[in-house]
């Protein structure tokens, strides 16, 4: 049995909404697991069930070999970082960190020792006497993490903790969370709707949609090998291009071009997915793109254009190439990196 074990965990709200469908998941000790999905997909509910803040309708949660279903949140030995940090506004930073330890009846010297260690680790030693209202967003974030670390819990839970920060700070804190987790080595679950955060932080990633884990794997596995249309569209930035097509006798005919010798026996209506970064310019390429707009990011250019009836088809090329608006580009798919999904089920078929 692994460290954290979810067995057929289900959440049905009193009004009948099924937020989380039968979900089974194992997380190893020291692993950094990320739940990613659009808002309302049930990822936070799943996390809150692990924390004990939501009742489990059906199924079992085992943490470190103990059944957690009926255990009170305060007894579970989990720590959570909330989206708005939920710092205690009337206590200074020191007491914010010390409160959980005090409740566990730890003596004063040990508390001071632990708080100071955690503060040092997070570089908040200078603010220990301040109230949360006198701290900046990044500092509050650190205090919230300090409050989790200081208790040395079995598992860290992060509920979209970076979404209140500005873009630059978010990237910086993302890096720090990852480093910190590696240093402390505590099993962590991180919930986010930001796929970049998910990709960068995760040891393993669970892509969740409508209360179901659509795919579970390492970030690269999921990026390279999305199993469904939803996962393909959700992971990767800019988003994968989707085209309608028809598959017959191993030949895929899409809007304006054909791909022969497709590696599947499937036939019928399909959706073809091509990542913008898997396209290359070549003479007599498969795809003819009429350029509408070029976004120059410096390192890359994002080229948006029209492909027959499909608008905003995206192609990503190195930033040193100059591409004129209204020009016509001829593109090929690099190394046959394309994805075919059944149109009705959304399942990958190639």
């Amino acid at each position, binding site marked *: 049995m692994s460290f954290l074990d979810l067995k057929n965990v289900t959440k049905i709200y009193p009004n009948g909404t099924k937020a989380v469908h039968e979900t089974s998941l194992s997380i190893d000790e020291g692993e950094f697991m990320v739940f990613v999905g659009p808002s309302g997909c049930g990822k936070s509910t799943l996390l809150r069930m692990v924390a004990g803040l939501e009742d489990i309708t059906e199924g079992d949660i085992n943490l470190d070999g103990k059944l957690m279903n009926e255990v009170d949140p305060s007894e579970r030995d989990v720590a959570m970082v909330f989206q708005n940090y939920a710092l205690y*506004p009337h206590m200074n930073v020191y007491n914010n960190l010390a409160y959980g330890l005090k409740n566990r009846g730890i003596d004063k010297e040990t508390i001071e020792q632990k708080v100071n260690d955690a503060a040092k680790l997070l570089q908040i030693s200078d603010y220990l006497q301040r109230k949360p209202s006198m701290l900046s967003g990044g500092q509050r974030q650190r205090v919230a993490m300090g409050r989790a670390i200081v208790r040395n819990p079995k598992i860290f839970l992060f509920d979209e903790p970076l979404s209140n920060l500005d873009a630059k700070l978010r990237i910086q804190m993302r890096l720090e969370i990852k480093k910190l987790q590696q240093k402390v080595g505590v099993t962590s679950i991180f919930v986010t709707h930001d796929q970049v955060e998910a990709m960068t932080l995760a040891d393993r990633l669970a892509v969740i949609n409508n209360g179901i884990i659509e795919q579970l794997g390492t970030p690269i596995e999921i990026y390279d090998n999305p199993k469904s249309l939803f996962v393909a569209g959700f992971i990767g930035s800019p988003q994968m291009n989707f085209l309608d097509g028809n598959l017959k006798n191993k030949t895929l005919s899409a809007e304006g071009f054909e791909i022969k010798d497709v590696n599947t026996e499937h036939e019928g209506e399909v959706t073809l997915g091509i990542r913008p970064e898997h396209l290359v310019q070549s003479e007599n390429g498969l795809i003819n793109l009429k350029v509408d707009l070029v976004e120059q990011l410096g390192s890359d250019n994002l080229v948006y254009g029209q492909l027959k009836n499909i608008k905003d088809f995206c192609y990503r090329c190195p930033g040193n190439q100059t591409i004129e608006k209204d020009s016509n580009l001829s593109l090929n798919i690099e190394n046959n990196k394309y994805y075919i999904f059944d149109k009705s089920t959304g399942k990958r078929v190639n």
Partner: protein
Amino acid sequence: MKIKPLQIIAHIILILGVLLMVVPIWISFASSSHDSVTILTEGMKFHIGDQLARNYNEVLNEKGGWSEEVTAAKMFINSFIMALGIATLKVVISAMSAYALVYYRFKLAVPIFWLIFITLLVPLEVRIFPSYKIVSDLGLTNSYTGLILPLVASATATFFFRQFYKTIPDELLESAKLDGANAWSFFIDFLVPLSKTMIAAMFIFMFVYGYSQYLWPLIMTTAEEYWTVVMGMKIIYTESYEGVALPRTAERFAYIILSMIPPVLVVVFLQKWFIKGLIQTEK
């Protein structure tokens, strides 16, 4: 700095307002320092006279009432105990009942809240006979408990606390739970310190409410040792119609001035908390 005409007008209005509030109090105070005869013959006074110490000493220590047992000092103490008890218990009870209403989401929470709220429509004066019956059956007439207990439930304060607790984000409770706080420690460690300015405000209102109670102590107390200030005020006025002595106007003024001191002290003392709460935005 140039003063604009609008500012002058604003200041005139403000000064008039201040005078309106202060002048009657000053006249009462100044009059309380004269001889009763002077006031009766010359009217109310603007300047301080020479009888200040004598009048106040007289008021505080002279025994009055029908059986000549109670002093004004005793009445002040009684009123203070009553108001303090009412204010303290009202704040404690309403804070705790609001806590139960907001955080324990049992099915009857909303109906119970409205039931509490409806009691606003039934002030003590309306239910004075049943209240008296209950208190007297319990044998609490002529006691501080009897003076305080029927007045300690407060719908207004419960309502204000409830509204305040509702603004506290749920994450705070959840976070506290994960930190090992139980229901009681969440109340003591979080809600009480977070609402301390609110508690101060409620305490002031409720203290003044308790201090100015008239009808209830009047009905409740037959023993003079439980008389309150407001009752005493009525008595010193009726006194003048009995006998042939001159009305003791100067002493009355002294009594009025003294009766204002306890509530003023409470406001002055708790105002510090008020301002502190306004400066430190802790949310």
